[in-house]
């Protein structure tokens, strides 16, 4: 029933393998399975991959590989994707201080959704989320799916500065800003966890596939 993924160029040195166009866990697992397959069977001239929700970006060196060469290689690898099963995921508990100084959109989100602030917090905490992909800035986890009552559009005008550790929502996604950066998501809280440390042997707190649960932070000063 799965249709063949499309392989389309993104410029002359990258391409996208399109498994689908929606946020779906089965599609996403196929993206990561192909990324894993390519990690363990690299092709000379293939530079790196960027797995996302439903697509895998593959960057290659056009001095070594033509588009059709890498496309043919990828087609063969795609045919092996079904044999790969996702690894056991890691469980991560994320303490959150909702609202306050960092969760500055919490009240407007509640108003917009016709909910009480407490309901927004309760609904955000009741699900276990999956890390579908990492992107945007170092260590940013794109997690989903949010329960329908929490689906909010992005801000019309993105903020120029969102502090590190800010917990946010947008559409059916939730995420955490690992470093201070611009941001267009709705900010609902803050976590003291450090998501990215370039000096560490394990620089990133999250990996794709991780299962994440938000809990209320204990009130320690």
């Amino acid at each position, binding site marked *: 029933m799965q249709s063949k993924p499309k392989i*389309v*160029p*993104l*410029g*002359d*040195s*990258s391409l*996208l393998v*399109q498994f689908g*166009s*929606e*946020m779906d866990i089965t599609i996403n697992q196929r993206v990561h399975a192909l*990324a894993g397959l390519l990690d363990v069977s690299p092709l000379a001239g293939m*530079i*790196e*991959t*960027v*797995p*996302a*929700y*439903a*697509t*895998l*970006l593959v*960057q290659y060196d*056009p*001095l070594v590989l*033509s*588009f059709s060469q890498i496309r043919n290689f990828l087609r063969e690898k795609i045919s092996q994707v079904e044999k790969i099963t996702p690894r056991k995921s890691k469980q991560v508990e994320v303490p959150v201080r909702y609202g306050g100084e960092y969760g500055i959109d919490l009240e407007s989100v509640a108003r917009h959704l016709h909910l009480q602030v407490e309901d927004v917090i309760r609904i955000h905490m009741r699900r276990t989320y999956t890390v579908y*992909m*990492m*992107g*945007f*800035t*170092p*260590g*940013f986890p*794109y997690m989903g799916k949010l329960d329908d009552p929490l689906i909010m559009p992005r801000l019309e005008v993105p903020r120029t500065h969102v502090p590190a550790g800010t917990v946010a929502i947008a559409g059916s996604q939730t995420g955490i800003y*690992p*470093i*201070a*950066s611009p941001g267009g998501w709705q900010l609902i809280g803050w976590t003291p966890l450090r998501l990215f440390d*370039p*000096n560490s042997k394990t*620089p*990133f707190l999250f990996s794709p596939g991780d299962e994440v649960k938000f809990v209320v932070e204990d009130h320690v000063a």
Partner: protein
Amino acid sequence: MSLEVIEVNGLATLQDPGRVGWRKFGVPTSGAMDSFAFRAANLLAGNDSNCAVVEIGLGDVALRALHDCIISVAGVGYGLSIYIWDFPLWSSYYVRGGWTIRLDKLDFDMWAYLAISGGVQTPPMLDSRSTYLRGPFGGLDGRQLQVGDVLRSGTPSHPLNELAARTLPEDARPVYSHHPTLDVIMGPQENYFTDESIAAFLSQEYAVSHTSDRMGYRLEGAVLSHRGKTELISEGMAMGAVQVPSSGQPIVMMADSPTTGGYPKIGTVVSADLPLLVQCMPNKSKVRFRKTTVAKAQKKYRELMGGFERIMEE
């Protein structure tokens, strides 16, 4: 061998080819904006093309050689002086200990690259010496160069006198311009845009906005209208990708761009023409886009990179 920073009032950072293999965790590639001039600077100094160099934009920088060394400078928009003389870019020079090297910003164009034979040595972060200011990490603790910084080099590949006076002839370099026409490969979301918008994108002139930076060059010109949706679920991006948010004004992804994005990409500037766009000056330069194919773009890139075989002794 080392260089001491004695004056800096521009954006001076250490850059190498960029961070490879970490984009899957959201880490931008970073690295030199003009990859051609960057590579030329290294090769002229007898370096491997992955050595770290000084990238300077937006202002001037001056360094003092603490020992005899070979330096090379490539790029556009800068005047080079060593000791009491002015010299052309795209060449390597023997610099005596104690002499001052100045790179002074001219009116047009953006970036120059200063390499020292042996390459600037710093502890690599995530496999690269490139500075990512927003991180902040890489280069010198993720920051811009400042007065007093001492840049130490590794061992030169050859005796110094063999590395001096090498040059890359002008006809082997990209044809930099203040109003370049840039080849683009259309898609992958070309179908998100109206036919009129695609026609406008491929025929109108776009000005480079003053809000451009190492993350992205913002363009101002004919508004590109979406047929319907203005967003998609986030997917990987590449340097040169032209994203169009709901404002209809295109943004071209640059070295420090986010690894993923959710705005439709109308096309991607080809590798061979990226240096031309990178060197465009905000508020001054204007660009046009022309449709090409992947095969033609790759051929053009191979031809451009073949120019490095023409580095010669003067």
